[in-house]
């Protein structure tokens, strides 16, 4: 006996133009990947003509936990030597690319 469900949840990512990144737009329910793509198209692309859609089973997405952000992302901003302005360039030369 099969339970009457609304199927699994899939996250939808749409790329609107070549050269642009895929962007998360929402989710759909579908029984398999083909249906997930079709539903994603019907729900999230009724007007714009995207160049690409990705669908990913929602429970396959691994995400950071906001409560851990402090510790998890902290190392990023204490390494000032990662930023170009940390360095002194002698006068008279330019190292910037124009």
């Amino acid at each position, binding site marked *: 006996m*099969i339970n*009457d*469900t*609304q*199927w699994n*949840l899939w996250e939808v990512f749409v790329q609107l133009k070549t050269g642009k990144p895929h962007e998360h*737009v*929402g*989710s*759909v*329910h579908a*029984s*398999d990947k083909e*249906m997930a793509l079709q539903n994603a198209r*019907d*729900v999230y692309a*009724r*007007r714009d003509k995207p160049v690409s859609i990705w669908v990913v089973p929602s429970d396959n997405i691994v*995400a950071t*936990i*906001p*409560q851990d952000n402090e510790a998890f992302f902290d190392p990023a901003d204490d390494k000032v030597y990662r930023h170009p302005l940390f360095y002194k360039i002698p006068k008279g030369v330019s190292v910037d690319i124009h």
Partner: protein
Amino acid sequence: MTEEQRLEEFQRKIDSGEKIEPKDWMPESYRKNLIRMISQHAHSEIVGMLPEGNWITRAPSLRRKLILLAKIQDEAGHGLYLYSAAETLGASREELLENLHTGKAKYSSIFNYPTLTWADIGAIGWLVDGAAMVNQVSLIKTSYGPYSRAMVRICKEEAFHNRQGYEIIAELCNGTPEQKQMAQDALDRWWWPAIQMFGPEDTKSTHFEESMKWKIKAESNESLRQKFINMTVPQAEARGLKIPDPNLVFYPETKTYTYGEVDWNEFFNVIQGNGPMNKQRVRARKKAHDDGKWVREAATAYAKKKSKQSAA
């Protein structure tokens, strides 16, 4: 962090205009309030397809039929954006639908009125989508990220809904006296229910205070209603239509209309299930759901069979 510190941090984020995202800590009543509000909104989009669906096969031209089909399909899409947003808060789709079908969850009272003539399709696009748009533009400012993003998406599509409705009304007003009378009759029947869509004036309840301090809602019912009236009255007058409210007075200094008393008894009566179409609406929705059961089961069985084959 203690509960109190969390709450402070939460409030600080909201006050500084940051959005709350699904995995962020949030007070339980913020979550509950949002699930209730977003799912009611979703149900309204879905049930809202029924009064218009009534006219698909009787649209007066192929052009009108195509437009109406596209508009109703958009409303299905709106429902799905919103269910998706509610699910980010931990609600399940099965449970949300169950609540609609058992009558536990509410939807906008306006969809419990019948669509008697073609002019009603014009009045719905013009007034009902117009009112929905005023509400939804304001909700872009809601503090909950997924709800706000769904509103951006929806608002982009609503402009077409509103315009096609006004175009139908304008066409009828340019037609025979009988056609113009049809437009007036539709306005007479839909005006007050549209005004009621914003809900009664907010009372000083904890519920309301929470939803303002946490920016679940950005504006009060009363201020949204006023916006809608100020916007819509000139549109009616431009077509030579008369708003069925003898107390409508324009104040040029404030560019605002005062209006007559709203019949909130009627509103609550309809919300409680006694409107002209409540029973038909829920019955139609349940029937569509039940009739689709075999499709859901077949698709599940097919997916299982295929994944077995690819595993073998």
